[in-house]
């Protein structure tokens, strides 16, 4: 080999040596099942979206939220404001005594974990009414400690905008009617139901802000809070007590527990409106507990401070119908899917283990209280939970992990249909 040949060979080899560099690669999420639509997913909402369960919320319950399940199924980046254990507040461990995880109190808050999040995917705040989605400073808004912990001084809208979303779900409005149902002083208080006009104005402003980002979206209908197990119709109590209703055997209520005839169905007692009266479990079970302990109790469905009256019931139902008509119209106007969770709620109530008998006092061999009559069986010696079936947690309002998976699949179905995506279902 001549010198020149050697030199030429070396020069030719030089470019080849450039290949010695080892490029590393980006590690983007796999969004192939949604064509990248969920690159920046943001969920707006309230306690259900946030992952509230059993009157509490922590990192464990947050990860069970339908929004988390949906993002997981889609392979979407999902960043939530993780709340330290045991929670803020900690969830119930025993709802009849209101004992909470880790011995925490109702006012206790373990604050938020200091995670460095690129953006916030779940901006939902427990307790948020529709107006709280828009602003924290309006006199009508009602920020709580979680508003700060989740949003850090922002509103849900501004947090959503900061995330530069590509896809947004909005499930707001539940608390605009739920607050009336859960009032401790007057269940069903009409003053606590947001007017349809006010709801529409607020909701439209929120939707306009979502549309302005250019993101795709899906809008959830407001849940019909009158069918959740937090309350039970007066009829159920009357039938369980009397055992005279077809298909509803006697519930084994203690003799010291009386149910007034004004709780009966109109078909059984003329003039009674038990079908249109709701009894919060916090009222009914408390009375049952006291009766089981030997203190005579009467459930009187004419006492407004204890039950949701027929007029209040109608007000709540009308609000839900009015809200949802507007939400559906907004969805249609933007060509976004409208996701209705109410069939899921109805199905949950119909599950055999519940059979429409919230609370499930009738299907228990023993009432879950120490000293309660137990039909000759062993009386429980420690407090137990009143359960609300597979799909509702220990507060009777918020979905369980199982229910969140069903809700996620409901959302997935709507999104796949509307956008032609192929996000796999979470399944049971």
């Amino acid at each position, binding site marked *: 080999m001549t010198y020149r040949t050697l030199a030429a060979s*070396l020069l030719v080899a030089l470019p080849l040596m*450039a290949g010695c*560099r*080892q490029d*590393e690669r980006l*590690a983007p*999420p796999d969004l192939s099942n949604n064509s990248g639509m969920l690159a920046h997913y943001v969920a707006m909402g309230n306690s259900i979206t946030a992952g509230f369960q059993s009157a509490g919320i922590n990192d464990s319950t947050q990860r069970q939220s339908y929004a988390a399940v949906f993002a997981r199924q889609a392979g979407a980046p999902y960043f939530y404001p993780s709340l330290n254990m045991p929670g803020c507040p900690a969830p119930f461990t025993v709802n009849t005594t209101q004992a909470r995880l880790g011995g925490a109190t109702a*006012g206790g808050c373990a604050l938020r974990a200091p995670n460095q999040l690129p953006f916030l995917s779940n901006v939902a705040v427990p307790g948020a009414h529709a107006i709280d989605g828009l602003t924290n400073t309006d006199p009508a808004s009602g920020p709580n400690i979680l508003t700060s912990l*989740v949003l850090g*001084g922002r509103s849900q809208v501004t947090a959503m905008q900061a995330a530069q979303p590509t896809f947004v779900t909005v499930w707001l409005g539940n608390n605009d009617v739920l607050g009336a149902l859960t009032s401790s002083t007057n269940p069903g208080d009409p003053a606590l139901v947001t007017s349809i006009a006010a709801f529409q104005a607020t909701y439209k402003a929120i939707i306009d802000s979502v549309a302005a980002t250019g993101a795709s979206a899906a809008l959830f209908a407001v849940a019909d809070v009158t069918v959740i197990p937090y309350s039970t119709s007066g009829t159920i109590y009357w039938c369980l007590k009397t055992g005279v209703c077809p298909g509803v055997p006697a519930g084994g209520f203690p003799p010291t527990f009386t149910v007034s005839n004004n709780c009966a169905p109109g078909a059984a007692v003329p003039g009674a409106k038990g079908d249109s009266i709701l009894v919060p479990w916090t009222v009914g079970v408390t009375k049952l507990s006291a009766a089981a302990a030997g203190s005579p109790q009467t459930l009187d469905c004419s006492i407004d401070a204890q039950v949701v009256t027929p007029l209040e019931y109608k007000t709540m139902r009308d609000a839900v119908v009015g809200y949802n008509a507007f939400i559906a119209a907004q969805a249609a106007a933007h060509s976004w899917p409208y996701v209705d969770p109410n069939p899921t709620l109805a199905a949950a109530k119909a599950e055999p283990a519940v059979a429409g008998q919230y609370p499930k006092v009738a299907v228990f061999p023993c009432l879950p209280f120490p000293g309660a009559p137990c039909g000759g069986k062993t009386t429980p010696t420690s407090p137990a939970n009143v359960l609300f079936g597979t799909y509702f947690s220990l507060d009777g309002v918020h979905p369980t992990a199982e229910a969140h998976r069903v809700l996620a699949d409901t959302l997935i179905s709507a999104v796949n249909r509307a956008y032609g995506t192929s996000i796999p279902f979470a399944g049971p």
Partner: protein
Amino acid sequence: MRTVSVRVALGLLAASAMVPRAASAQGYGIYEQGACVMGRAGTGVASPCADGSSIFFNPAGIALADRQQFSVGGTLIAPRGAFTNDLTGQRTALKNAVYPVPNLYYVRPIGGGRAALGIGLFAPYGLTTEWPDNFEGRFLGYKSKIQAIYIQPTAAVKLGRRASLGAGFDFSLVSVQLRQRLELSSQIASPPSITFANLGIPYGTEFGDVNLHGHGSGVGYHVGIEVEPIRRVTLGARYLSRQLVKINNATAEISQIMTGIILPPNNPVAANPATGLGPAVPVDGLLAPQFGTGGPLTNQAGSTYLRLPEQLVLGVAWQVTPKAKLLGDFQYTNWTVFNQLVLDFDLLGRRVLQENYRKAYGFRFGGEYMVSPATTLRAGYYTHGAAAPPETVTPNLPEGARASFAAGLGTHLTRNVTVDVAYQYIAQADRRGRTVDGGLATPTVAVNNGLYTFHAHLISATFAFAF
């Protein structure tokens, strides 16, 4: 109500302090100290160019000078880089800029040509990198600058007809600047450990700006040897010692940036624990005392030190024909000296950050061909590994393995005046790194959140005068 007492942790100030970026060699080294050698991709330890730059490339080389040499030159470095976030897909590019690196050499033969004296001024370490001030990595640093100017008086002597030995002292003058934003969520809001993040303040909330600057000096030495063991083949070696540069007069200028955040009523800062109720809290008002008289975030002095690593270069040159020469160099740089940064602030106390740099090795290949008695063409290639470990690839120094091609031309304008020009392209391997610390005192690769890309264009010119 919680007692809010902001305890600012400028850990990242220490993290970024004194660190240059966009350097054109390993770590924050710069190897382009003359257009002639640059045209051969830095190969020169065994056969330096006759423009005085051997003061840097091999001090022994000046012994070969037969006339006085004076050269002045410079290299313009145009770094181009970007960071792309894995999850957001957001790509942020370095600010486009061109940075000059000067060099100046003078060589004078003495003793009838058996020895020579010289002095050189060059910048073997440094550079500047600037990201947009809204870059996601701005809390680690959005602008940093280092200028390490070496002044090296040198002496060399011939050892017989086939060898020479040279040495010099290096006096370094180093100036540094770092600008970074202060991030609120990681700061202590309520002692001993509750941070603003615990209270809901989102990561990325900036509340202050820091401009840290200072200067210092150091001393080191540089030795080289050049041997021709067989005809037409020369071997060379040089060793540039490490330096410890103390920067005792650093100044941190700190200013508040308004967040505009108002925590809504019933927030965890002001709420009555019993009722959960309390007023809204403007965060800026909460922070203002920290920036006021006596606060920890007022302008203050500080000190630190910077280690400039030693270099060992071995090379060979082969005069293939009277017109053609091939060269090869091996370079070792002990970047392990850059294992941590320690910064002491008058008010903020001591901050320590682990860098854990590694030893780095490079290989250079070059050649030149005399196309006419007056003109020589040059070309070369080099490659080297990364000095930064995977866990410390940050905006401050997104360094990685590199490959580079160079080409140059030298021509005699007159008998006494030579001009050399060169171009070099540097391609760095795309490298995973981070823009955050993950809230960890010693971040791991698990915190890496994206990809740094980098390349650079360099042009250089040297005017050499012999007399």
